[in-house]
């Protein structure tokens, strides 16, 4: 770089200043407006999009698919193209070279020209790299496949190039409209890909995240009903379990009540958590934590602990918004529906045993269809029939079925609350409606009879 070149640059800049503007007030209003627009955008995003809730960290959950923040996605995707032993090249050498190239750009870019038509190589290379990054990001973040993304980007960048490549016969207006077209194209592609991906992601099952103590209690109750009721009873009253020893002999073990003051005062949350996670094998309790062969994640165990603590510990201040019962009460003359009432009762008291993989005469109670028609003794419940097996056993009467004697349910010997038995009876009487709408139609029709 010689003095002559420097002089030329400086002179040109002086000239530009002469016919230019002043920072205040000529150009600062643009900065102000843009900053204000960003401010509004931030408030809008925080208010209407928010931050996606994520479950608590669980280092034992090996099934979790990690995703980096979106602006590192391209690097994440890029690494897929490197075989194991060369991964370090893609992970460190190439990004390192790119960073160094970016940092030292003014030193090796000796091209004295500044106008874009005279810098085709530099601009082309940069466009290629940026295009590649955007393509990789979109490929990693959306359902678009590699070739599709490449083709689309070739199209967009082609249009851009065609627009920017200065030819004398091309009008400025044409160029501008082409530029706009390319920009809209880019946004359209990103937008469509994003919408498609969001639609796909919506189908996937997501972990439920509880935010408040009340929500944790509600989720904890559901989990307790499913996982714990079988041995500990619906209200932690205990019971007996059959344990099969290593030599095949069966042994009846008592399960002590866990809803007592003794239990609650002498075990803190961490102890309760550990008991659920590791189990107490010598007492017949299997581990429930995902890391030890159980079905529960760390958050789920924590929800159960919260439920136990706030339900049975009389020292705890139950939050005002906590729902004391997940089962809605039935009004006078109201017909219960499966959807609203019966499923809530079965979920709380029955499904712990009456689900896949348990000993239950193949009677699965977690959906309407199986509840009505499933099981070895099917049908266990018949519309209008007060002698239905299910109604009999929950009212304390044993029944002779195809599989032999059917015991009283629940098997702990502690019967369901009268209002829930009444709920079942009224439901069977009314013809076992599935949805709330069906039940409502029946309750309005009832007085006419």
């Amino acid at each position: 770089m010689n003095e002559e070149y420097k002089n030329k640059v400086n002179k040109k800049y002086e000239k530009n200043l002469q016919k230019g503007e002043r920072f205040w007030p000529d150009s600062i209003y643009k900065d102000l407006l843009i900053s204000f627009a960003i401010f509004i955008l931030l408030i809008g995003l925080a208010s209407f999009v928010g931050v996606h809730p994520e479950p608590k960290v669980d280092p034992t959950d090996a099934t979790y698919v990690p995703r980096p923040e979106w602006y590192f996605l391209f690097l994440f995707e890029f690494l897929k193209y490197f075989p194991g032993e060369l991964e370090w090249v893609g992970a460190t050498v190439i990004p390192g070279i790119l960073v160094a190239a970016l940092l030292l750009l003014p030193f090796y870019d000796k091209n004295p020209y500044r106008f874009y038509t005279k810098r085709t190589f530099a601009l082309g290379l940069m466009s290629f790299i940026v295009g590649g990054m955007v393509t990789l990001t979109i490929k990693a973040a959306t359902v678009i496949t590699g070739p599709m993304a490449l083709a689309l980007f070739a199209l967009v960048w082609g249009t851009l190039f065609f627009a920017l490549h200065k030819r004398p016969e091309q009008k400025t207006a044409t160029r501008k409209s082409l530029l706009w077209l390319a920009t809209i194209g880019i946004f359209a592609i990103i937008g469509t890909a994003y919408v498609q991906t969001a639609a796909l992601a919506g189908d996937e099952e997501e972990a439920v995240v509880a935010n408040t103590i009340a929500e944790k209690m509600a989720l904890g109750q559901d989990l307790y009903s499913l996982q714990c009721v079988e041995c500990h009873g619906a209200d932690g009253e205990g019971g007996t379990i059959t344990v099969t020893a290593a030599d095949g002999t069966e042994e009846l073990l008592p399960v002590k009540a866990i809803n007592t003051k003794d239990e609650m005062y002498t075990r803190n949350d961490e102890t309760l958590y550990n008991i659920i996670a590791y189990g107490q094998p010598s007492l017949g309790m299997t581990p429930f934590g995902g890391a030890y062969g159980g079905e529960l994640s760390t958050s789920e165990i924590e929800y159960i602990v919260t439920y136990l603590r706030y339900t049975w510990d009389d020292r705890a201040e139950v939050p005002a918004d906590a729902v004391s019962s997940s089962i809605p009460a039935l009004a006078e003359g109201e017909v219960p529906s499966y959807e609203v009432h019966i499923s809530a009762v079965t979920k709380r008291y029955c499904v712990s045993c009456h689900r896949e993989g348990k000993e239950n005469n193949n009677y699965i109670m977690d959906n309407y269809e199986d509840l009505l028609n499933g099981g070895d003794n099917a049908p266990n419940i018949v519309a209008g029939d007060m002698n239905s097996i299910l109604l009999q056993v929950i009212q304390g009467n044993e029944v002779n079925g195809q599989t032999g004697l059917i015991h009283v349910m629940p098997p702990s010997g502690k019967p369901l609350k009268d209002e829930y038995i009444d709920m079942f009876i009224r439901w069977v009487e009314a013809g076992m409606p599935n949805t709330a709408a069906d039940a409502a139609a029946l309750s309005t029709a009832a007085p006419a009879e």
Partner: protein
Amino acid sequence: MWKNIYDWLDERLGLQSLYENLLDRPEPHGTWWNTLGSASLFLFVMQALTGIFLTVYYTPSPDHAYDSIQYIMNGVAFGWLIRGMHHWGATLMVLVVFIHMLRVFFSASYKYPRELTWMVGVMLFLLTLGMGFTGYLLPFNQRSYWATVVGTNIAGVVPGVGPFILKALRGGTDVSALTLSRFFSAHIWMLPAALAGLIGAHLYLIMRHGESAYPDADD
């Protein structure tokens, strides 16, 4: 009276010359693309502000980080707003700084006499990415934990020094309380201090050389 106060302050602070030198400067005609630099600065200030207020409740420990964030989101008035703005501000800042860099590249503004401005700018961009990476771990949820496991693993694949870098980044072999507290320290002290210093240098260089002019066909 205002006049007297102003005169007193002006005499000591030199407000008039500040105004003349910093604000009432001549510059070449700019376009809307020239606002991206000040937009980056604005976002940095917003991130600093919301970040400072997040530390009022946030606790950088594996036992508390997640719960404290949940408390910010659900237990504190406007906590969701502060966290939401910090979260989205990070995304916007990476985007705006990157586009700002591309603008400078395409208008060849990095050439003489603004080479140093460019280099400082590239460092600012890298620091912004560093802020994104360290900040991502802080909520200590599934996503952030596993992203950090993978992100630090990438540094660990370098032959020879890889395992050493990995342990230095994580503060041990696992992503643990040590990782969280060093990421927190980097996120709220080291990187912001470096960013603030370099932003000062960047602004000084811009004042010194003036805003660049868009090249025309003669350049």
